[in-house]
């Protein structure tokens, strides 16, 4: 479904849910999710439904992911970086109320 354009830029290595994937420099973390062929990048907090990136422009919030340990980030708004760890956002964010 997704193929790299011929004028391929330098590759950046990231992991998507533990899977190594190589993506063009400047691409978004959401693009990496799609390139990795992940089944879902989050489960919704209310019903647990699986979701993948959709609008790719910061509007729909369906690409929320845990990126480098920070939960609920809009993956389509975050450019990839060498070694970035992108993980599934399972349900609502968990906060330790005493850790603030």
């Amino acid at each position: 479904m997704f193929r790299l354009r011929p004028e391929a830029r330098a590759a950046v290595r990231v992991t998507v849910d533990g899977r190594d994937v190589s993506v063009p420099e400047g691409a978004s973390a959401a693009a990496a999710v799609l390139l990795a062929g992940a089944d879902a990048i989050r489960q919704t907090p209310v019903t647990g439904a699986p979701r993948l990136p959709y609008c790719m422009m910061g509007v729909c919030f369906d690409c929320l992911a845990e990126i480098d340990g920070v939960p609920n980030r809009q993956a389509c708004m975050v450019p990839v970086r060498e070694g970035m760890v992108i993980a599934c956002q399972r349900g609502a964010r968990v906060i330790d109320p005493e850790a603030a």
Partner: protein
Amino acid sequence: MSTAQASDAVVIGGGLVGAAIAYGLVRKGLEVVLLDEGDVAYRASRGNFALVWVQGKGDGQPAYTRWTRASASEWPGLRDMLAEATGIDTHLQQPGGMHLLFSDTEVAQRLALLERMKLAAGNHGYEYRLVEGQELRDMLPGVGPKVIAATYTPYDGHVNSLKLLHALHRGFVAAGGRYVPNTTVTGASAAPGDFRIDTAEARYATLRVVLAAGLGNRELAPHFGLQAPVVPNKGQVLVTERTKHLLPMPTVCVRQTDEGTVMLGDSKEDKGFDLSQTPDVMATIARRSIDSFPWIGQLNIVRAWSALRVMSADGFPIYEQSRRFPGAFVANCHSGVTLAAAHALLLAPMIVAGDLDPMLAPFTADRFDVPAAA
């Protein structure tokens, strides 16, 4: 224009106040038309904070405290009724509510207020207590060090107010009510028990008319020998991303919704019909929220809006039947969520009976009349 369409009652205003009253009227067997304006309306019902709140309400007017308490007591019945009729869960929770206090002065003022209200409540009782130290931290996880105490009352709670509005509309239609959206009242004529309401599309003839158009009541009321001197009061709201449930009960300024977002609010500004959001007020709300619960500072804000409260000069509601044109009623308040149960289950039957209970006598609009200078 088509010939007049007859009904037992026309309710003008499809927000929480109008929809609750209309729902109560159809449940009593009336043929009811509910006229709802379009998105040009200010729609306080879609911008509110969704508290079912009792604590501190009615200082100087015990009838308002009693009316608010009555609604909070009726709320579980309304929830069950709506769930059965529509399948919609309004997510009512009534675990009690907290008012956070940041200084000794605030503590003293709050205790004086609640003691005054307890005295005014007399035999009705008014339970409250001051919560401090470890008990406060146990009751409100992650409460900030700047919060020195809080007052707790057992009557408070919250709902999902969008689901409430949806359920009222759906329940109204399911019970045979006629909902007319995107319509504006263009004219009206009144005689006792015989009202004509004109919109661009139709004329409605009705035995009763209920004005529940929020800020729009101000213009509508004089057609019916009534007055509704209400003005807008702006509130701004911030909403965080969803988190696993942390807050077991609401506070006046911070509450966690049934779906996990945290709502931050309770600003009050007199800016007319200006709905703009302003960074200074948003920053103040955010700062106070983090003072209340420092963990909120870790959360992203995902939405923000402002809406207009419908305020009378003394902050209490307006309920009145027109003396000149009996059958015409006005209903205004700034607590359409809290009072939804009272409107559907207590006020609507009074409107059917054609007689407002004496308990509502303190809420007529003539209390605002200024005696003419001698």
